[in-house]
């Protein structure tokens, strides 16, 4: 927390939580970005994401037991796909934190946290459905919103709509 | 054992109270609630009773600012295209022809005195796609595009959903376009002549 700018109370709580994580995982975790609207940090080594998640949920002073949502992201500039997870500790410490995990664009892997938070089950399926990043160790990994034999991943920036689906003209 | 009889007792009591309510409504069915709209003062002083409105004969009250059928008062429309750009769905199609300088008077002014600079041969709104969000009516500078509280505008044929507000027939539009192209050609010729003279002077 370089500048002396005074941050709101919630950001300070998130910073405290980040400190505990940083102290345990050190290099695998990027610097804490203390912006007002959504304080977050990035997991640099994606393979450790599941351990970090378990640590965040079970640590006595963290207790992030509520995952609000996982948002799939397409970072076209860096040629990467990624997810943004909003985590929160309900009715215990009341602090919030966001975590970003990135993987490369084609055939990228992110370890699934469906075993840590049940919410992640469907959110990860939706992220795969829309962006195409694979989640290893997901209990029931298939598309959730689009039909199973849909070509391409709709929310990618370079997505071209397929001409027809089972003979039905798709472009509107 | 007491739980067994307690079960039967609460069952009987609650069923009886439920039946009491429905019977009260049954005997209250001789009154019909009036068809006042919510915006009228006496709405809540109406008698409680059957509240069905028989739709085709009794009209369903809609407030004056209801956002339903779109209407464009084309005389006031200056053809700026703001509504077309603002519409999230893009269901408005406008074609404008620039008014030639000499028949500005013919084109006329809008109701608040603004001089209109475009003819509007085509102003189509595809009401089937429109989601009545009302954004076009808020961005319209002359407020000629408004929502009217007419909520029932169903059609038998899909093509009737495209409302044509353009006020030029095809022939007039052709005439105007030809005139514009001639004007442009003349202006073009003059510009070349002037450029050629300028060139000659610079050479001489």
């Amino acid at each position, binding site marked *: 927390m370089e500048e002396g700018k005074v941050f709101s109370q919630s950001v300070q709580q998130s910073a405290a939580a980040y400190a505990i994580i940083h102290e345990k995982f050190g290099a695998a975790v990027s610097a804490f970005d203390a912006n007002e609207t959504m304080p977050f940090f990035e997991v640099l080594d994606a393979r450790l994401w599941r351990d970090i998640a378990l640590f965040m949920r079970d640590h006595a002073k963290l207790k992030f037991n509520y995952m609000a949502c996982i948002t799939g992201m397409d970072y076209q500039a860096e040629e990467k796909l990624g997810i943004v997870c909003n985590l929160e500790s309900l009715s215990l410490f009341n602090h919030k934190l966001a975590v970003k995990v990135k993987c490369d664009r084609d055939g990228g892997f992110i370890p699934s946290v469906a075993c840590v938070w049940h919410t992640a089950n469907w959110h990860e399926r939706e992220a795969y459905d829309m962006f195409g990043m694979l989640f290893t160790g997901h209990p029931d990994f298939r598309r959730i919103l689009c039909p199973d034999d849909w070509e391409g991943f709709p929310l990618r920036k370079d997505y071209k709509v397929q001409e027809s689906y089972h003979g039905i003209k798709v472009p509107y | 054992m007491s739980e067994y009889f307690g079960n039967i007792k609460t069952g009987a009591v609650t069923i009886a109270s439920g039946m009491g309510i*429905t019977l009260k*409504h*049954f005997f209250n*069915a001789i009154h019909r609630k009036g068809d006042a709209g919510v915006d009228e003062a006496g709405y809540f002083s109406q008698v409680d009773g*059957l*509240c*069905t409105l028989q739709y085709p004969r009794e009209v369903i009250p809609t407030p004056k600012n209801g956002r339903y059928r779109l209407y464009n008062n084309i005389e006031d429309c200056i053809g700026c295209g703001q509504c077309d750009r603002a519409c999230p769905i893009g269901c408005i199609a406008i074609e404008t022809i620039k008014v030639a300088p000499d028949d500005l008077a013919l084109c006329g002014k809008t109701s608040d005195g603004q001089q209109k600079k475009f003819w509007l041969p085509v102003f189509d709104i595809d009401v089937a796609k429109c989601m009545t969000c009302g954004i076009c009516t808020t961005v319209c500078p002359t407020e000629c595009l408004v929502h009217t509280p007419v909520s029932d505008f169903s059609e038998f044929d899909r093509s009737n959903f495209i409302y044509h507000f353009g006020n030029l027939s095809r022939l007039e539009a052709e005439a105007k376009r030809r005139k514009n192209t001639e004007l442009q050609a003349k202006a073009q010729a003059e510009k070349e002549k002037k450029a050629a003279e300028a060139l000659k002077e610079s050479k001489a």
Partner: protein
Amino acid sequence: MTSTALSQFSIPFLMGSSLNVWSEALAGFNLFGLPLGLVILAAIPLVFIALYSLTYGVYGERKISAFMQDRLGPMEVGKWGILQTIADILKLLQKEDVVPTSADKFLFVVGPGILFVGSFLAYAVLPFSPAFIGASLNVGLFYAIGIVALEVVGILAAGWGSNNKWSLYGAVRSVAQIVSYEIPAAIALLCGAMMAGTLDMQKIIAIQSGSLGFAHFFLFQNPIAWLPFLIYFIASLAEVNRAPFDIPEAESELVAGYFTEYSGMKFAVIFLAEYGSMFMVSAIISIVFLGGWNSPLPNIGPIALNDLTNGPVWGAFWIIMKGFFFIFVQMWLRWTLPRLRVDQLMYLCWKVLTPFAFVSFVLTAIWEVYVP
């Protein structure tokens, strides 16, 4: 209707009020030696059955449910939507009669038939008035209880025949429900039969007639009689799949239960069989416990209300009015209560109704034997 039936029972009741004079004159009316009057007299209840159960039962249910829910109900066809049911029947008539390809054709067609016949067979034994009874069996009540079970065969045939998972659920549920609710129903009616001492419907009603009107009805004769009355009413609801027990055709779970695949006239047949059996069950309860065609009005000194309002045509009026009252209560229950689950239904039958039915049976027996 046999002329012996008329002579055997109507003579003592033909005396008295103008209505009786009118019906007696009609009875005596002969055309070229053909007893036309008797035919007309017999036609009245039959026309009533067709008119009621085919049209105005359905219209009544839609209007009553509308008034209970602050709605108008059908208003478009006819003055207050009176012709609505006729319009429905015409619509159903001209609908294509779809038989699903994978359905078992014979069962699919036979199901509604058995269902319709099963519910209308019991009308044969219902005494509509002292002068008119289809077949005056001396085991009328026993026949009525037995014939209701025929509906189960119809529902099972319809459910299994349409080869649809939802109908299978509906049919299997309805078998369990109707068969198990026969027992408390039969025992409750047995209490009534015990009070009357006979199973013949005409005699049961004749015993309940008297100048004090409603005081003679079995419901008021015996202090415990309200218990079998209540048990039979609840059990009869379950037998005709009505109100809290409409589990076989639970709209919200099984789409439409055993008649999911039916459309057109077959659907109309099933639908009207339900209304037919609704009236039949209400008629039985009013016969056994509320003195069928006897008028409830007592004779108060000089004003002989009871005698004034008794007689063959009055009798038909009274039994139909009592039937309509119970049909109103059935409809009233339907539009108030949610639906029971299948296991709760079984709990209610075996753990609540049947024990209470046995208790009431014993108490009625004690009452009949020891109290003169």
